[in-house]
């Protein structure tokens, strides 16, 4: 792989998106925005696959590093531009590539202000890739905040329902999360004098960070600043209330990106900073507090699942199920132990895998719901029914997505959840109880998933005063392009379910290195 490839992956969609926004429609030039966007994200997809598979597992560590020393060159304040990926972030970069392509396909029916829409969508993809690839905390923060701009416009302009309200709610919550992040980053900077992650790790190893920190702010305080910041993004009970609104009102493609990639920024942050960095700053915090995090995680799983059961809007239902599924992330996160270098790491690995698998599974679910909504013009479950008669393919893939989401073996969700359960269960009795509670969430997941499939897709075709009844005969199934995006996601889900090593081998390196830097 040539150097600069990772930077290309980040800035290619951003720059080409802006170019589309400015130049695509004027009196000299008129290009097909949709096809161009498809081409750009197609290139991104292929590149991210190539990068993922050329990550050298025998060497490990950070690879594809692009280094630019004087990004912000002040005497007392050196922020560097460093991007690179390791075993933890490589699958997430791949995920962004896959979902970015699918989200453009899901946008093929956008009519309103096309060039701005695709500009923002492309910028979003580049910026999110930047979050996963940043190795400098300040750079990470810049990307983290930059993601807000496209999201705000995408939800408020192209959204439905209470789009402005939801966009604003999303903005405020995420800004809060970003503010906390900034406080944390600055605190770390003043105790270490650097923003670069592996420098902090190195200083942490020599014990400097902790002694400096304890003078100013206790490490546990910074830990929680970061934790809350990421928990909002994840989202975790009780700071999740922005998610259902944002999801419900966002356009399909944005829901896919939001559930599939943006939530993963929270989980990634937890692993990268609260686990990886704090392993070198003060490993006792998470080790001691682990059981409490396990309880919060398990509670979030059950709370989200029970609320999911009574949703009547397809999108809102999947959004709440995301809250439930992200509870597993916290559960796996809690299984960290300072002594894991001699113990086991599968809980953390499960967390990292859950980020990837949930991205593809929920991405697929939102994609299919979006495609259904485009046809039926309603997502209200009592107005739907019997869609299988007109949309056998959508239904089939939806059943697969549903099965994956309820943790059916053979599909990817199971592997991640199993690893989390195994890893957390053995840590101790409070962990074990939390795990058992969380496993029961899988039973509830079966309940709401099958209930939704039964009401919306199976059964007799709707009659009576449902708006769908009038247009039922004109409903169509997937077209070729839509089928392509659905198949890409389904293949990812099935392949990871049957042959998990394709992801876990890389994650194994990433998680293992946390303890052996």
């Amino acid at each position, binding site marked *: 792989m040539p150097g600069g490839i990772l930077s290309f992956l980040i800035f290619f969609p951003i720059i080409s998106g802006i170019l589309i926004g400015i130049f695509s429609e004027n009196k000299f030039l008129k290009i097909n925005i949709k096809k161009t966007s498809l081409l750009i994200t197609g290139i991104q997809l292929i590149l991210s696959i190539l990068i993922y598979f050329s990550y050298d597992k025998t060497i490990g560590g950070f690879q594809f590093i692009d280094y630019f020393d004087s990004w912000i060159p002040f005497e007392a304040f050196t922020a560097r531009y460093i991007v690179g990926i390791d075993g933890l972030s490589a699958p997430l970069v791949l995920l962004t590539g896959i979902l970015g392509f699918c989200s453009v396909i899901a946008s093929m029916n956008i009519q309103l202000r096309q060039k701005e829409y695709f500009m923002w969508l492309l910028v979003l993809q580049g910026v999110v890739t930047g979050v996963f690839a940043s190795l400098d905390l300040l750079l990470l923060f810049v990307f983290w905040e930059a993601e807000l701009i496209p999201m705000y416009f995408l939800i408020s302009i192209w959204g439905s329902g209470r789009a402005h309200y939801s966009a604003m709610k999303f903005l405020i919550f995420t800004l809060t999360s970003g503010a906390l992040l900034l406080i944390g980053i600055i605190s770390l900077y003043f105790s270490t004098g650097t923003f670069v992650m592996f420098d902090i790790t190195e200083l942490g190893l020599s014990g400097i960070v902790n002694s400096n920190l304890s003078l100013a702010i206790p490490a546990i305080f910074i830990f929680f600043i970061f934790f809350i910041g990421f928990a909002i993004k994840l989202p975790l009970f009780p700071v999740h209330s922005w998610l259902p609104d944002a999801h419900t009102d966002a356009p399909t493609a944005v829901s896919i990106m939001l559930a599939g990639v943006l939530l993963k920024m929270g989980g990634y942050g937890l692993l990268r900073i609260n686990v990886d960095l704090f392993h070198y700053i003060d490993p006792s915090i998470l080790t001691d507090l682990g059981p409490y995090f396990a309880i919060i995680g398990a509670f979030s799983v059950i709370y989200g699942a029970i609320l999911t059961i009574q949703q009547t809007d397809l999108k809102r239902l999947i959004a709440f199920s995301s809250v439930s599924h992200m509870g597993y992330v916290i559960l796996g996160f809690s299984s960290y132990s300072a002594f894991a270098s001699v113990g086991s790491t599968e809980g953390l690995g499960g967390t990292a895998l859950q980020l990837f698998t949930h991205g593809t599974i929920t991405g697929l679910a939102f994609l299919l719901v979006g495609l259904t909504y485009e046809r039926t013009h309603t997502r209200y479950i009592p107005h739907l029914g019997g869609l299988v008669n007109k949309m056998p393919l959508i239904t089939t893939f939806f059943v697969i997505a549903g099965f994956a989401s309820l943790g059916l073996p053979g599909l990817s969700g199971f592997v991640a959840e199993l690893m989390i359960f195994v890893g957390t*269960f*053995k840590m101790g009795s409070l962990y074990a109880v939390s795990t058992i509670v969380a496993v029961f969430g899988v039973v509830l997941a079966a309940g709401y998933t099958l209930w939704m499939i039964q009401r919306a897709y199976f*059964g007799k075709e709707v009659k009576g005063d449902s708006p769908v009844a009038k247009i039922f005969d004109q409903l169509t199934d997937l077209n070729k392009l839509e089928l392509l995006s659905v198949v890409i996601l389904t293949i990812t889900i099935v392949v990871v379910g049957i042959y998990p090593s394709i992801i876990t081998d890389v994650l194994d390196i990433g998680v293992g290195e946390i303890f052996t830097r």
Partner: protein
Amino acid sequence: MTNNELVWIIFLLPLSSFLINGILIAFTKFNIKTISGPLNVLTIGSSFLICLFILINGIGSSFDYQSGSFQWFSFGIFEITMGILLDPLTLIMITVVTGISFLIQIYSLAYMEHDEGYSRYFTYMALFTTSMLGLVFSKNLIQLFIFWELVGATSYLLIGFWFNKQSAIKAAKKAFLMTRIGDFGLIIGILLIAKQGSQYLDITQFYIAVQNGIFTTEILTLVGLLVVIGAVGKSAQFPLHNWLPDAMEGPTPVSALLHSATMVTAGVFLLARMFPLISAIEIVSTTVAYIGGFTLIFASTMALVSNDIKRVLAYSSISQLGYMFLALGTGAYGAAILHLFTHAWFKALLFLGAGSVGHAVHTFDMTKMGGLKDHMKITYWTMILAAISLIGIFPFSGFWSKDEVLLGVSKDSNILFLMGLFGVILTGFYMTRMMLMTFFGDFKGGESGLEEKSLHESPKFMIYPMILLAIPSVIIGFFVSSPIDLGIIDKHIMVSFLDHNKLVFPDLHHHEIKFNFLLAIVSSLLAISGILIAIFTSRSNIDLKFARKILVNKYYLDYLYEEIITENLFYKRLVKLLDFIETNFIDKASHILSNSLRWVSNKFAITQNGQLQIQSITFFISLLIIIAGYFSWLYLGGN
């Protein structure tokens, strides 16, 4: 080729059928109706032949277990291997699964011929068979759990096959959810084993560890009870039984397969697979035995009053599975599997017969049948053979296996033995009642007032498998459990084959199997008395209203689960409570926060309104605060 390679082929054949059919349906316009059914018949049939080949080679000789495994994935020190464990138990199971599935595929060719979802049906059936095969040869508990869940998921698809029928979808959902409650127990049991070390997830390693006392008794007891929960869910034992009667909503051949060889037998298989664990812990084995003993009577009583022919058969399956649990709980390992083996053939036949009857009269309500014996001779004769076999009359198949079960139980506990004997009377009663209502008396018009003349026998693709199934239903019990040596076939060949499993019984115990004449006579007399009571009561009009009401309402358990627990407690209380919290506290909190911020900023805005007086006051107050702050900092020892 080695046996292991052959087992892979047995597994891959139906899998390939599933993949070919599935891909053709989803991505092409090709009309696959011509090939999907025959493809299943061909692949599953070939698998069956290979199974027979291995079985016949293996059963006489001193067959030893064989296994091979590969790594599925590993993470840190956590490793999951997969592979094949081919011991006598697996060998018998794969033969039953492929054999019965093969005949049911042939039957389905005709039964499903005019159905719109013909190809989809065969796709699911191929996956169903594949999953069950994967389950029975799994070498690792995680691998077993994967196929265990796949069996559940495909049965969901098959029970809900007619997705336009709301009742079918509901039944499918119920089946999946209730078995999932059992799976919840099983996976926690597996987690508990994984906690001891991921190498113990390998079944052979687990056996060795249990036999050498590596785990503490508490852990083994917990794991055992959790595994039993899983088995109870899958095998529809009390209290997780009520999904099975509803599962009738699927096509009849599906019921035939689900009740005989796949799905419900998975629970019994799991207990047999975990037999070293079950038998090592007294509490666990007693629990299994009493669950079985109670369920076999409990389910039979509901069969006494049901008027739906498929429901009667469903309750009888639950009851017969209860016998298998009873046998496993009392240590009669061989007898339990023997009963599973013989039961599979005649239960499949009974369901196919019920399907054939339903095909003719368009209903499964027995009050609308009657007098069919003259119109459907082959269905009548094959079904009566199967019924007699199920009741357990000498020398039919069911007699031999039920006898072995009772013999095993009699050595262990008198109460359980009496429960088993009582079940024999009930079985005789409800099967006779079913046959009388269906085939004897006057024809009562079928679903839509059919003419009696229009009744006819089912097409030959449906009839042939029934005839083929009738043969093992009658004779196989005698051959595999003969009380005397039959030249090439030794006496009690299947039980001794199973008991020679070095994995399960490492210190080879040569317990002599004796045929007990007294027991055989007693159980036969009880069975016959059940038949006679049924004939007698059908002529008189005895009606125990109160008992009948309870039984028809299935002991109100459906009501308890669905109305009280799910609807009232869960939906109306818990879900509403959490929804209240979500909207009034969690979501409200962000509103209150933003409103209060707005309020505060409105108040502070006054200080910056541009009036010189206000501005200067603001300035001085701020200055005072800063100075006060600086001095207090100094005072507190700042530097």
